Each structure stands twice: as structure tokens, then as C-alpha cells.
């Protein structure tokens, strides 16, 4: 598989605090990569570097390089707005807008200047189908998104992200706020989506990482300790720390 995104010697600082140091990691196209590691090790920080959401936090600094399709994401001519359209993101807590279900999905199109009503309607339907939510909501597209259950809300957020046709999808613990059944739906969805997207997912749940990902990267206190095929990492990790973490000895 070709490499879709990659980080080269990436370091990240909150003020003086080095939250990530010297991370080098590739993400293959149409693959699911799981980022695991104990709380505070920098998984979220790393994920947010990929679509430059960290830019919003004042006093932060990036060293090293991230590329998307070989082009530097932190290049001076890069427009973050464009970048974020290409690198979508789903958050830990479902965060639908306080709008209708339809408008939640249509939002991304509207901000892209799409005005054609039928085009929008088609795309909304397509995205909801992709997110396996269409059947559940097709009769109440004009109801408030806030009335959906947690799991539905999260799938709505995924549909919303898909509607702008990103190429990479970042997910930061997308199922941690959900019950087991909703979690399972999301995991199934990730399986379906990887045919069309490159997916990078942060998770605290080892089983989930093992179930959904092709590649796993283990972070520890801001460092990338080990990365490789998920099977290998979970059965024959090279590093002691990885093994300790996976077997639940800490974290």
C-alpha cells in the first residue's frame, strides 16, 4: 500500500513541555492504524498534529515534518482549512451541532459553497448510509440531532466528517463514551470505511485496537516505542514496555 501520511522526526511542545519527541511514523493508504498508550502519553496530541487542530492552542510549537501525499502539512503555503477538509476528524465525545440531523451533515457542504439542493440531499443520504445511520434516521432528518442516542450521535459525527469527502479520517477514542452495542456498530463501520479512507484511531481499549486496526503504534510518555502489524504487536511485541502495557501491567 502507498503511504498516505507520515510524520518525520516530529516533536511537539506545549510551551516548554515536550509532549511528543521525535516521532517518525507512516500511515498506509486504506489501512487502519491504532495509536495506543497510557493516558497522557501524547496520542491525542499526535493525532491533532495531523490536521493541525493544535494550531488553535496558543503557545504550542512543532518541530519536524508531517506530509500528506508527500507534501508538507506544515508548509508555509498550506491553508489549514483545505488541509482539514482532506483530513477529517471524529472526537471522543459525540459533538453534533444543535441543528437538525440533515443540517449537521449538510454543514460541511454548505461551508464549501455547495448551494445545489439536490446535490446536498444526495450527499447527506450517501454519508448517512456510509455511516450506517440512514435506516435509523431517514424518517426524521429534520429532527434535532441532539435527540439521538450517544451511539447514533457518534455515527452522525462520522457521517458529517465523511460528507466533505476527506481522504484521511482521524478518530480520537470515538467509542469511549458509548455503550458496548454502539461501540460494536462503530467498529463495524470502521471496517467498512477503510476501503475508501485512511483511518487513524486512538483507543484505550486493547481489544478494540486488536479488532479494528491493521497497524498499531504504541506511545509512551511522548515517544513512539514500537509500531508494526497489529497481530505482531499484540502477540510478539519487541519491547518490554509494550508487552507490559498490553498485558495490563500498567496504564
Amino acid at each position, binding site marked *: 500500500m502507498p503511504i498516505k501520511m507520515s510524520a518525520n522526526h516530529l516533536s511537539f511542545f506545549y510551551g516548554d513541555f515536550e509532549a511528543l519527541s521525535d516521532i517518525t511514523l507512516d500511515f498506509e493508504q486504506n489501512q487502519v492504524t491504532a495509536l495506543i498508550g497510557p493516558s497522557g502519553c501524547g496520542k491525542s496530541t499526535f493525532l491533532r498534529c495531523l490536521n493541525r487542530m493544535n494550531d488553535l492552542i496558543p503557545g504550542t510549537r512543532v518541530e519536524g515534518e508531517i506530509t500528506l501525499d508527500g507534501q508538507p502539512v506544515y508548509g508555509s*503555503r498550506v*491553508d489549514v482549512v483545505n488541509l482539514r477538509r482532506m483530513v477529517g476528524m471524529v472526537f471522543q465525545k459525540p459533538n453534533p451541532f444543535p441543528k437538525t440531523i440533515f443540517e449537521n451533515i449538510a454543514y460541511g457542504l454548505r461551508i464549501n459553497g455547495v448551494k445545489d439542493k439536490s446535490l446536498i440531499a444526495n450527499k447527506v443520504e450517501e454519508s448517512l448510509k456510509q455511516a450506517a445511520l440512514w435506516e435509523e434516521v431517514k424518517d426524521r432528518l429534520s429532527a434535532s440531532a441532539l435527540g439521538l442516542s450517544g451511539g447514533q450521535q457518534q455515527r452522525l459525527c462520522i457521517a458529517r466528517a465523511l460528507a466533505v*469527502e476527506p481522504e484521511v479520517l482521524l478518530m480520537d477514542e470515538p467509542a469511549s463514551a458509548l455503550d458496548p452495542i454502539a461501540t460494536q456498530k462503530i467498529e463495524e463501520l470502521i471496517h467498512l470505511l477503510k476501503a475508501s479512507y485512511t483511518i487513524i484511531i486512538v483507543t484505550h481499549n486493547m481489544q478494540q485496537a486488536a479488532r479494528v486496526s491493521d497497524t498499531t503504534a504504541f506511545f509512551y510518555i511522548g515517544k513512539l516505542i514500537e509500531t508494526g502489524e497489529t497481530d505482531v504487536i499484540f502477540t510478539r511485541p519487541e519491547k518490554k514496555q509494550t508487552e507490559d502495557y498490553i498485558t495490563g501491567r500498567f496504564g
Partner: protein
Amino acid sequence: MTYPAFRKERNMTSAGRRSLKEKIIKSIFLGIALASITTLGLITVFLFLEGLPVLQYVSVKELITGTLWYPTREPPLFGILPLIVASGCVTLLSAIFSVPLGIMTAIYIAEIAGPRTAEIVKPTVEILASLPSVVIGLFGLVVVAPLLQRMFGIPVGVNLFNASLMLGFMAVPTICSISEDAIRSVPGSLREASLALGATHLETIIKIVLPAGASGIATAVILGMSRAIGETMVVLMVAGGAAMIPESLFDPVRPMPASIAAEMAEAPFRGSHYHALFAIGAVLFFFTLVFNLTADYLSSRYKRKQLSG
């Protein structure tokens, strides 16, 4: 399906125009925000611009310490000490009513009342705050003044006491609602700790909650007094209007805002009287500024304490 509408600009760069537009929007907003604080600057500038010329007629010392306010005599006498003292007196005296009342009401709402009762008392206090001052003035003039005359056997009912009483009630809502916030922001864990030690609710309130919310409550008191010192209609209508240093509770007085309001309409434009009234405005502004600065300082300290505590 593909959507040429946005598939075509599939690269991370470009979009110079959009970011230009964003920049323009942001600077417009900055401009407006600056404009709205510029008004504060303008207020200061104009008070001084129109107030300072009074120094052609009196020295600063005479202005501030002079006890005779005869602005229309020939030559005029511009001593505003009686006005300053009057403002100080009504403010302090009103605080004697409003501070205990405001804080006790806040305690009632935040600590004692059930949620239902609180939901009635709070709007009551807020509505009290919204009563137009001219109506309170009317009330003081028509109802309270004759009442005071009869009750205390005093010659006139419009006086320092009446004005303070009315101002006190006007300051209560300010003091109450800010104190209530301060009391509510005291962490519940402190309350529980105290109660679990066998303290009564009252002991918990007085020894734990109030000290922990002290700077917030102090802010409330100061803002309440700031409201009282700047209030115009009440002192215009029920303070009596005598420009003298009061010797008793029932002496008529003429606080600064009353003087400005009563005289400005007929002060010849840019004459000495006009400038003198602006100078009073500047003094009044200075007082409220000091109050507000103190409140600002206290509340920022209180926020910091909460963040660290």
C-alpha cells in the same frame, strides 16, 4: 458520486482569497471592539475637556475643599466639598442598609431556600433591580418623605436619610446577586466537610462559606456602593438639595449627581458653571473608577484563588 464543487480544489495550498477575507473580517471585529472601549476613553476625554476649564475660575484646592457652592453668583463660588461629602454620606449610609440586606438575602437564596423558593426570590430581586430610578424617586418623594416627617417629627422629609434608604434598596440587587454567585462558587466539598464535623448549617455558613467567598462578596459590596454613588434620580428627587455639609441624618443634602442633573440644563453653554458641572462629573467618574478598579482587582484575585484552590 463525485462533486466537482469541491473536488477540484483538492490540494492543501491555495485559498489566498479566503484567508484574506478571514483577515478582513477579523480586523473589522477588532475595530468594533476597540471602538467600544474607545467610548470609555472618549468619556474621560470629554469630562476633562469640558471640566478642566473651570480651573480658570478656581484652583483645584478651592474646588475640592471649598465649602460654598454658589455657581451663579457674581463672582461664582465653586466649592464642591459639600457635594462630595453628601455623596459620600448617602453612599455609606445606604451601604448600612444594603450590605446586610443584600448579603443576607444572598445567603438565603444560595444556602437556605429550596430550589422552588429560590426561583421566586431571585427574580424578585432582579425585578427590584430593574425598577426605574425615577419611580423609586417618586416613591421616596410621595410616600417615604411624609412618613419620615411624621415618624421622626422632622421638619422636612426629603433628606440624607430618605435618599440613603432609597439608594440602599437600589443597591441591594447588585450586592445580592454578586454575593450569591460568590457563595455558590464555594465548593460544596467544604460545606460537606464542615457539616460532617458536626457543625450546624449556620456555623458552616459563617465560618466556612462566607470567608471562602469573601473576596467575591467584597466585590459585590463595592459594586453596590458604586451603583449608589452614581445614582442620579433618587438623590435629585429626595435628598433635599441643600449644598451643605450635613450634621444630622435628617439634613437635606445635595450629592454630586443631583447637582449636575439639576443645574446642567440651565447652565450657559461653556460658561464657568457649565465647566464646573463637568468638573463635578469628572470627580464622580473618578470615584466610580476607583470603586470599579477595586472591584476588578478583588474579583480577579478571587478568580485566581479559585483556580489554584
